[in-house]
C-alpha cells in the first residue's frame, strides 16, 4: 500500500452552504502531509468525512484502502484523531481521558504514554474542566501519539500550544515519521507546515487549489532580492519576470519569478554589486498567492 488517503471530487453541503466543492487530496503512506487553508475552507469537514462522522454527498474517499463511512470502526483501530477544538468531560481527569480514548482505539503504548506526559508537561490528575485549551489539546495529542496506529489525523493540533510545546510537538511528529507512520496535519501555521511536511495541499472554499512538494511549489513563487550597487541600477523594470521594483539611493529591491532569477542577477552584476540578499519564497507567499484575490477583493491586495 502506498496511498494512505485518496480523495477525489468530494462534495459536502450543509443546507445552502457548499463546505466541500469537489475537493481532491492524496496522501502517500509514510509522509507528513500538510493540509493548509484559512478558517472555513473545509479542512475540518474533510477530516470529519474521512472519519465517517459526516457522510459525503458525492465524490470518492478511500482511507487505508477502506471506505471511511462503511468501514469506520475497522479503520478507526488503525488511526488516531486530534480535533481542532478539544472538548473533554469536565469531571474526568486528563489521565483518565487518555486511557479511555486509547483503550477505545485498541490500546496504548505505556512507555510512550509516560514519556509524552513528561515531555508535554501535563498533569494527568487534573479534571478536564480545570484545563486550559492548550492542556486539553495536549490530552488529545498524548492519547493520539501514544496509540499504536498507522495514520494520524491532526486538525490544527497546535492552535493552543505555546512555542515551547510547539517544538515538542514537532519533535514528536518527526519521530512518528521516522517510524514510518503517516500524518495528515491540517494547519494555518505556515512555519509548522514548512518545518514538518513533505508535501502540502492548499485548499480554499472547499476545493484543492494546489498540491505538491514544497520544492515544486516554490518553483511557482518569487524570490525577493535586495542589492546595493556601485552605480544606480537602471532598466530593472524592463526585465522579464521582475515585479515591485523599489529603487532608492544606491539600493534596489524587487521580487523575481524563480524561473527568471538568473537573468535578474546577471543584470545586477553589470552595476557592481556591493551587497546582495535574497530571500527564498516562503509558504506565506504561496498562501498569499492563493488568497490574494480575496485580499484584493477587500481592497488590500496587489492584484496578482
Amino acid at each position: 500500500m502506498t496511498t494512505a488517503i485518496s480523495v477525489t471530487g468530494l462534495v459536502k453541503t450543509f443546507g445552502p452552504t457548499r463546505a466541500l466543492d469537489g475537493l481532491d487530496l492524496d496522501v502517500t503512506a509514510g509522509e507528513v502531509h500538510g493540509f493548509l487553508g484559512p478558517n472555513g475552507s473545509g479542512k475540518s469537514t474533510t477530516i470529519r468525512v474521512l472519519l465517517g462522522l459526516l457522510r459525503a454527498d458525492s465524490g470518492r474517499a478511500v482511507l487505508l484502502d477502506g471506505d471511511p463511512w462503511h468501514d469506520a470502526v475497522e479503520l478507526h483501530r488503525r488511526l488516531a484523531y486530534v480535533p481542532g477544538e478539544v472538548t473533554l468531560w469536565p469531571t474526568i481527569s486528563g489521565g483518565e481521558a487518555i486511557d479511555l480514548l486509547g483503550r477505545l482505539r485498541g490500546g496504548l503504548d505505556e512507555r510512550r504514554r509516560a514519556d509524552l506526559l513528561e515531555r508535554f508537561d501535563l498533569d494527568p490528575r487534573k479534571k478536564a474542566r480545570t484545563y486550559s485549551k492548550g492542556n486539553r489539546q495536549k490530552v488529545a495529542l498524548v492519547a493520539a501519539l501514544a496509540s499504536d496506529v498507522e495514520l494520524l489525523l491532526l486538525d490544527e493540533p497546535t492552535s493552543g500550544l505555546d512555542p515551547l510545546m510547539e517544538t515538542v510537538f514537532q519533535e514528536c511528529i518527526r519521530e512518528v515519521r521516522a517510524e514510518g507512520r503517516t500524518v495528515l496535519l491540517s494547519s494555518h501555521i505556515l512555519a509548522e507546515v514548512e518545518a514538518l511536511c513533505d508535501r502540502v495541499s492548499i485548499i480554499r472554499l472547499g476545493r484543492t487549489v494546489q498540491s505538491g512538494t514544497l520544492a515544486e511549489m516554490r518553483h511557482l513563487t518569487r524570490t525577493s532580492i535586495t542589492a546595493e550597487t556601485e552605480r544606480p541600477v537602471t532598466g530593472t523594470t524592463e526585465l522579464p519576470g521582475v515585479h515591485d521594483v523599489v529603487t532608492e539611493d544606491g539600493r534596489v529591491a524587487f521580487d523575481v519569478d524563480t524561473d527568471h532569477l538568473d537573468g535578474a542577477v546577471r543584470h545586477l552584476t553589470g552595476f557592481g554589486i556591493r551587497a546582495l540578499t535574497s530571500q527564498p519564497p516562503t509558504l506565506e507567499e504561496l498562501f498569499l498567492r492563493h488568497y490574494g484575490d480575496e485580499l484584493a477583493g477587500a481592497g488590500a491586495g496587489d492584484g496578482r
Partner: protein
Amino acid sequence: MLTGTGGLARFALRRDRVRLPVWVLAVAGLVTVQANQSLELYSEPGALASYEQAARGNAAIIATTGPPVGLDTIGGAVAFELWSTVAVVVALMSMFTVARHTRVDEEAGRTELLRSARVDRHAPVTAAVLVAVLANLAVLVAVIAAGSAAGLPVRGSLAFGAALAGIGLVFTGATAVAAQVVEHGRAVYGLVSAVLGVSFLLRAAGDIGESWVYWLSPLGWGMAVHPYSDDRWWPVVLCLVVAVVLVGVAYVLVERRDVGAGLVQPRLGRARAPRALMTPLGLAWRLQRGAFVAWAAGIAVSGLAFGAMAPAIEDLIVDNPELQTYLDEISGGLVDAYLVVVLVMLALLAAAYGITAVLRARGEEAAGRAEPVLATATSRPRWMASHLMIGLVGSAVVTAGGGVGTGLGWALAAGEPDQLARVLGSSLVYVPAVWLLVGVAAAVFGVAPRLAAPIAWVALAYCVVMGLLADQFGWPESAGALSPFQHTPQAPAEVVTGLPLVVLVAVAVALVGAGLGAFRRRDLTT
C-alpha cells in the same frame, strides 16, 4: 461600578424571552385552575368548614402544603393548597434565571469575553439579579391578575403574590451567592436545590409540630404572610432584607475570586483510568451516575412521603366528598385509587429521568464530546446504546425505587409489611409506559437530533396533562389515547393484563430500534 449592567440585563431578557413568560404563565395558570376549582368545591355552606377540620387533623397534608391558616375563606384554602407547589416553582424560576446568566455563562467562557469589554465585574451578577427581580415582579402581577379574575379578593391576591415574589427574591440572592462559591453550573443547581429541599423539610417539620423551626425556612416566611386572612406584610419585608443581604454577600465574593474560578477549589482526579471506565458504557455510567442517584433517591423519598400518607387518605376522603368522587372514578378501594395516582405520578417522574438520560447522548454530541469517541473503534450503535441502556435500565430502577418508597412508607405507617411487595409489583406495571417515552426520545435523537429535547418533553408533558389533569378540565378520554399511561392497567386498583404491556414494550423497542438505525445513517451535528 455597575458599567455594562443595563446592556447585559437587556441581553439576558432577550435570551429569556420565551422561558420567563412560560414560568410566569405557569404560576398564573396554577392559580387560575386552583381558584376556580376551590370556588366550585367549597361554594356549599359548611363545605369549607369540614375541609378545614380535615386538613387540621392531617399531618401529611400539612407536611406537603403548609400550615392550615385562613381556611375560613376560599382564598385562604387556595393559598393553602397551592403554596408549597407555587413557592417551589417560583424558587426554581429564580434559581435557573440567576444561574444561567452567572455561573453557567462563566463556565462556558462567555463571561470572560464580556468582562474584557467595558463591563464591571459586578455587572453580570447585577444583571442576572435584575432579570430575576423583574421575573418575580411579573409573578406578583400575574398572581394578582389571576386571583382577581377568578373572583378572589384583590388585597389577598396582592399579599399572596408578594409572598411568592419574596420567596423568589430570597432564592435569587441564594443563587447569586452559590454562583460565586462553586465553579460549575450544575453544582450551583445542586447547592440551591439542596437549600430548597432543606427549606421544605424544615417548613414541613415546623408546621406539623407547630414549632418555631419553620422560621429557619424561607418557605415558612412566605407562608407567614397568611394571604387572604391576616395579609401580614412584615414577612415580605423579612424576605426582602434577606435577599438584599444575600446579594450583598455575592458582591463581596465577586471581589475575592478570579473569573471562572470559585471559592471552593476542585479536587484532583485519578492519573489513570479505572478498568470500569474504559468502555462506552463505563463512560456513560460515569457521566450519568450522579444524576441517576439524585433522581432515584428523590423519587424514592417522595414515594415514602406519599406512601406514609396512604392510611390517612381514608379519613381525609370521608370529609371531602369531591375528592371522593374524583378517586371513585378510578375504581377500586379508596387507598388503591390514591396509590394509582401516586404511582402514575412517580412513573412520569421516572420517565422524565429516562428522557434526560437519553438526551445526555445529544448533549455529548452537541458539545463535541461524541466526536473523539466515535473516531475510535467505537461504533455508532454501541455509543448510543450505552446512553440508552442507562435511560432504560435507569428509568426502570427509578420507577421501582418509587414503588419501594411508596410501599415502605405505607407498610411503616399502617404496620402492614406485606404492602411493600404489593406496591413494588404494581409500580413495575408502569415500566413499559415509561420505556415508551424513553423510546420517543431515542427515536427523535436518531432522526432529528436538534428536535430531540423539545419533542421528548412535549410528549412527556402530554402524558402528564392527560394522566393527571384531563379530568379537571373535563376533556374526553379519547384526547389521551396517545398516552401510554392510558393503556396501562391501573395497578393496584385494576387487574393487570399482559397484552397491553407487551404491546407497549414492543412499541418502545421499535422506537429505540428506529433511533439506533437513524443515528447510524446521519451526520454528527453540533
